[in-house]
């Protein structure tokens, strides 16, 4: 029973982690909570749905294309909604983010309607695999596998490529990174691109997992992933991964223990607890005041 719930929790938590990474990377660089991030995840799920249903694509190709769509969308959103406000107060950027979020969910509502949509059943063959007393479905394996692959790729980019090093430098000291010759605007675009592509993958995986894609799915998932990012330490990439998986596991165990009506409250209880007792989260750095 416990092992079964643990597997379920890790699968769910991996998707939270994929979304949480976008919050944490953007925050790490420009100290902005991108409240439109949940909607990017939602658009990712819809994009894949369109590719599968209308263009009859294979789910993997649909996922890659959905990631590409959201990657572009993330870059464009940053360019028109946040960049002009870079030197304004944080509140202005936050309000702009809420505006983008409302715009995207309303747009999708107008196009696709309010009912939840589902992927066709055959989109990914579901078989149960037994390990001891627990079982893991091929779908859960897919979610955990793809999430792990994407997160490993992200780690590689951040630590071993030039642009990844520039990202880390910019998040540690924005001005000095510019003095080293880093084009910080390019780094910011790149960060939005990466975060949005990961969120899109999360949206597609969740869409298949629960067989439901709806215009308002980004709201709760976004808030939970934000809680996961804070739990892991906002700004920390390994923190977002850990926070996401941990939150998924705690949520599933909580539901299994009979608190299913508190399912969504668990994330927020954790958020409030972390902010009260350890605002830097599990793996976060001390918040440095930047000049």
């Amino acid at each position, binding site marked *: 029973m416990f092992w079964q719930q643990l597997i379920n929790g890790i699968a769910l938590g991996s998707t939270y982690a994929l979304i949480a990474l976008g919050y944490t990377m953007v925050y790490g660089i420009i100290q902005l909570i991108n409240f439109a991030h949940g909607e990017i995840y939602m658009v990712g799920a819809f994009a894949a749905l369109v590719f599968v249903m209308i263009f009859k694509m294979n789910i993997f190709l649909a996922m890659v294309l959905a990631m590409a769509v959201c990657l572009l969308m993330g870059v464009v959103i940053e360019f028109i909604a946040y960049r002009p406000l870079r030197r304004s107060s944080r509140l202005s950027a936050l309000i702009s983010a809420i505006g983008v979020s409302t715009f995207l969910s309303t747009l999708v509502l107008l196009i696709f309607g309010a009912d939840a949509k589902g992927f066709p059943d055959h989109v990914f063959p579901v078989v149960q695999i037994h390990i001891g007393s627990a079982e893991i479905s091929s779908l859960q394996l897919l979610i955990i596998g793809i999430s792990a692959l994407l997160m490993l790729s992200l780690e590689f980019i951040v630590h071993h490529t030039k642009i990844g090093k520039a990202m*880390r*430098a910019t998040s540690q000291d924005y*001005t000095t990174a510019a*003095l080293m*010759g880093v084009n910080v605007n390019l780094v910011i675009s790149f960060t939005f691109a990466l975060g949005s592509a990961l969120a899109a993958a999360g949206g597609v995986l969740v869409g298949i997992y629960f067989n439901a894609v709806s215009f308002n799915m980004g709201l709760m998932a976004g808030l939970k992933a934000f809680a996961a990012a804070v739990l892991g330490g906002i700004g920390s990439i390994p923190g977002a991964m850990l926070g996401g998986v941990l939150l998924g596991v705690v949520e599933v165990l909580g539901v299994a223990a009979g608190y299913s009506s508190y399912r969504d409250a668990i994330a927020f209880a954790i958020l409030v607890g972390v902010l009260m007792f350890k605002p830097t989260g599990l793996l976060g750095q001390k918040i440095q005041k930047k000049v």
Partner: protein
Amino acid sequence: MLTVEHLTVNYGAIRALNGISLDVREGEIVALIGSNGAGKTTTLNAISGVLPIAAGTIRFMERDITNLPPHQITASGIVHVPEGRRVFPRMTVMENLEMGAYTCKDKEAIRKGFKEVFQWFPRLEERKRQLAATLSGGEQQMLAMGRALMARPKLMLMDEPSMGLAPMLVDEIFKIIRAINAAGTTILLVEQNAHLALSIAHRAFVLETGEMVLSGPAAELANNPEVRKAYLGE
């Protein structure tokens, strides 16, 4: 090599620099001295492009660089060693140095850069896998200078390299600054420690609350009664 004319910089409603001019010729060490809050850091930040300029022009190697973004100014050959060192704390010494070479595409040149930096600062080689945050103040200053040298700058802007260092370390750092200059890098040096700055500079400028009040050969300024009284503690 560098010509700054009538530079004005504001922080909101506060005017930090009021139409100052200065110039640096190839091969020189030029000192910019002045008391705390005079506008020295502001001057360097305006030259390297991290602060918006209200009025005036900055020319470098016959080229107008006023209002260029910082990464383009760096690419043009000006590298800034900022006040307080500002090493990347959660990157290793090696990674910090790699960041210094960010604009450099030639792998061979980068390898040569590492070799040279480790010759200037053998201590950095011993600590190359350590996170920069774990270095002492003096080592961080060496890292900040080494990182700047990795870009093979034509002009190095240095902001208070002596700040917070023990006297022995300060002597060591200044010896190296002189040697770096002798090896062909032009230097614009900002210092509160005027005595030290004037001892290694060819020429100097004196800044007082956003106005340039004096300039001339360093030896001359060191003998100027006003300078001696205000900045050399006599």
